[in-house]
C-alpha cells in the first residue's frame, strides 16, 4: 500500500507530512518514558523481520498481491508507540533507499501504515484482549487488529487519493477496501503465527501496559 510520488496532491501530502512528524515526535517522547534495555534489541528484530516480510508478496486474487504491513504485529509486541516508530523506520528506509513509496507521500504512508497500523491496531487489539481472557484474547485480538488495521489503512489511503482528485471517492474507496479485505487475511495469518510462537516460547516479550506502567 506504499503510495508512490505523483498520486497525492500537495493539499493532501503536505498536511500528512506535518501530522506524521508531530505524531512521531509524540511517539518518541512516549516511548522514551517507558523504554527499558530489553526492548532495544526487540525493536531492532521487529524492524528486521517486518522489513523482510514486506518483501514477500503473496498472491491474493487474479493478478494482485499483498504483503504484511506489520503495524498491528509490532504493536502487540512493542506497544502502540514503539510499534509505530519501528514501522516508520521501515517505511523511511524503503522510501529513501529502495524507491518503495514516494518521498512526498512518505507522510501519508507513515500515517496509514504506522499510525493506523500500530496505534489503531493496538486500540483494537487491547479492546479484544480485555474482553477475552488469557492467550485466546491475545490471539483473537491479534487476528482482528491485523485484519481491521489493514482495511482501515486502505480506507484512509482511498480518502487521500480522492482528496487529491485522482479518482472519485465512491470508486476508489470500494476498490481499495475490497482488495485489502483479502490482503488483510494474509496479514492476520502471519501476525497470528508470529504472536502464537512468541506466546509459546517467550510470552514475557509481549507488550503489557499494566507491567510497564508500574
Amino acid at each position: 500500500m506504499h503510495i508512490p510520488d505523483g498520486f497525492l496532491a500537495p493539499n493532501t501530502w503536505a498536511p500528512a507530512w506535518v501530522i506524521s512528524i508531530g505524531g512521531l515526535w509524540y511517539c518518541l517522547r512516549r516511548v522514551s518514558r517507558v523504554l527499558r534495555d530489553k526492548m532495544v534489541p526487540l525493536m531492532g528484530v521487529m524492524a528486521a523481520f517486518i522489513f523482510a516480510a514486506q518483501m514477500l508478496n503473496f498472491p491474493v486474487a487474479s493478478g494482485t498481491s499483498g504483503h504484511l504491513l506489520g503495524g498491528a504485529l509490532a504493536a502487540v509486541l512493542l506497544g502502540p508507540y514503539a510499534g509505530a516508530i519501528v514501522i516508520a523506520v521501515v517505511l523511511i528506509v524503503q522510501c529513501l533507499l529502495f524507491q518503495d513509496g514516494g518521498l512526498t507521500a512518505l507522510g501519508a504512508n507513515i500515517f496509514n501504515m504506522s499510525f493506523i497500523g500500530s496505534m489503531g491496531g493496538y486500540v483494537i487489539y487491547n479492546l479484544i484482549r480485555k474482553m477475552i481472557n488469557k492467550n485466546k484474547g491475545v490471539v483473537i485480538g491479534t487476528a482482528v487488529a491485523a485484519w481491521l488495521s489493514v482495511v482501515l489503512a486502505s480506507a484512509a489511503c482511498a480518502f487521500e487519493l480522492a482528496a487529491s482528485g485522482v479518482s472519485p471517492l465512491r470508486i476508489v474507496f470500494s476498490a481499495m477496501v475490497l482488495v485489502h479485505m483479502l490482503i488483510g487475511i494474509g496479514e492476520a495469518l502471519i501476525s497470528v503465527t508470529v504472536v502464537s510462537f512468541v506466546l509459546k516460547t517467550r510470552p514475557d516479550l509481549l507488550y503489557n501496559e499494566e507491567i510497564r506502567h508500574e
Partner: protein
Amino acid sequence: MNKKEIFLSLLLALSLAFFVSPLASPSPDGLEKVAADKGFIEKEETRPAFLSPVPSYSWPGIDNDTLATGFAGIFGTVLVFGIACGVALIIKR
C-alpha cells in the same frame, strides 16, 4: 532477549529476505492494482536515481535477479535492525 535469541531471530529475517524474497509474487499490490484498474497508475512519478541507491529491491550491478533481490533484502534487513536499535538506544532514558 538474550544474544542467542537475537541472533536466531535475525537469522530468520535474513533468510526470509535472501531465500524467500525472490519467490515473492510479482503481481501488483492492492494499491497498484486499483490504480491500474481505475486509470490513475500513469500519475506515478519516479524519483531521481540518486535518492534510491537500490531501486525496486534490486542490487545494482548484479545481473542475476535472484541474487540482486537477495542482497538488497540482506542490506535492508541489517540496516533497519541497526537504525531501530539506534533509535531505541538514543531515546532510552
